[in-house]
């Protein structure tokens, strides 16, 4: 009888111990889901930073195709937000090629990448020299230099769908001597 009792009690005790573990496991499972969501979130932000970093490395080489390699076909560029946006990847390529021709050595330096959710912000120093005549105005050969933040919006599948610069075109014009109308 004693032996039978031990045999009955032992599994019961173990069952209870495991039941407590099951409760802990459920709450730990919930935590695991929350943690894995947080980790996935951070992984996405790091991926987005990498995409933008590769894009800007191509920008600094004046490689328009490389710069917009991960842009979606319906990519929108708002530039400084003060003029009409440029819509589609092909139109953006033409606009950037125009910029590379106008400012021969345009480049970004000391770039600092931050990300939250779908957005990547890049804070850095930008400079360039006006070398090509445009709109009937002769190139002055003057340089511009300013700090700027560029914002990129990245889709779930890692496509750049939107870009916004911050520094106004007015700043560039005033620094390089381009006459504003």
């Amino acid at each position, binding site marked *: 009888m004693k032996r039978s009792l031990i045999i009955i009690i032992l599994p019961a005790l*173990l069952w209870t111990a495991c039941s407590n573990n099951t409760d802990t496991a459920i709450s730990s499972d919930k935590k695991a889901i929350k943690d894995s969501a*947080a980790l996935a979130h951070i992984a996405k932000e790091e991926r987005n930073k990498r995409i933008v970093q590769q894009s800007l490395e191509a920008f600094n080489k004046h490689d328009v195709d490389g710069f917009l390699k991960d842009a979606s076909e319906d990519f929108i560029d708002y530039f400084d937000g003060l003029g009409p946006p440029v819509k589609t990847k092909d139109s953006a390529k033409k606009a950037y090629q125009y910029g590379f021709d106008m400012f021969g050595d345009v480049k970004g330096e000391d770039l600092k990448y*931050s990300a*939250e959710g779908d957005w990547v912000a890049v804070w850095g120093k930008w400079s360039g020299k006006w070398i090509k005549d445009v709109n009937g105005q002769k190139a002055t050969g003057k340089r511009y230099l*300013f*700090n700027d933040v560029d914002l990129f919006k990245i889709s779930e599948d890692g496509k750049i769908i939107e870009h916004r610069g911050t520094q106004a075109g007015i700043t560039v014009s005033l620094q390089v001597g381009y006459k504003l109308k």
Partner: protein
Amino acid sequence: MKRIFFFIIAAAFSLVACNNKSESTVSSDAKDTAKTAVDDKETKEIRNRKIVMESIEAFNAHDVDAVMKEADPNTMEYGDGSMTPIKGIDSVKAGMKMWFAAIPDVKGEDFKVVADGDWVMVYGKWTGTWKNEFMGQKATGKSFKIYDVDIFKLNEDGKIMEHHNVQSPQTTAYQIGMKMPK
């Protein structure tokens, strides 16, 4: 005997199950450190974002004290980097009061926020009309509209240590007809 055998097997299975749970607990403990770091980072970023957005809301209410409520006494104002930085809450407050007096309707809207580590970046549209004298210059009544990014660095205690922005003051000055000091 059959019954006893059943209970022994049941007990053995229970033990194995419990042991497996223990092993997975150990391996999950090992991951906890990394996950805690992730949680801490997210918690800090959420806190920093809240502090900064409260400061910007106070700016829109032109409440200078509330804007600087979470600023460190030695906070640094770097502007766009083209001028000498300003050190300390009182100096920053004085400059802000002058700006609110000259442009009484200055406000920001349509914000996009990126909080990452110690930094919070706030992209937004800023507008205002130059209505009152500013540093000896008469108001032109002209308005400005610019986009800017305000960049804040916070310390571990949630105090704002630095503020930067990127839009050149030349842009605003050009739009409202203000002469920039040489």
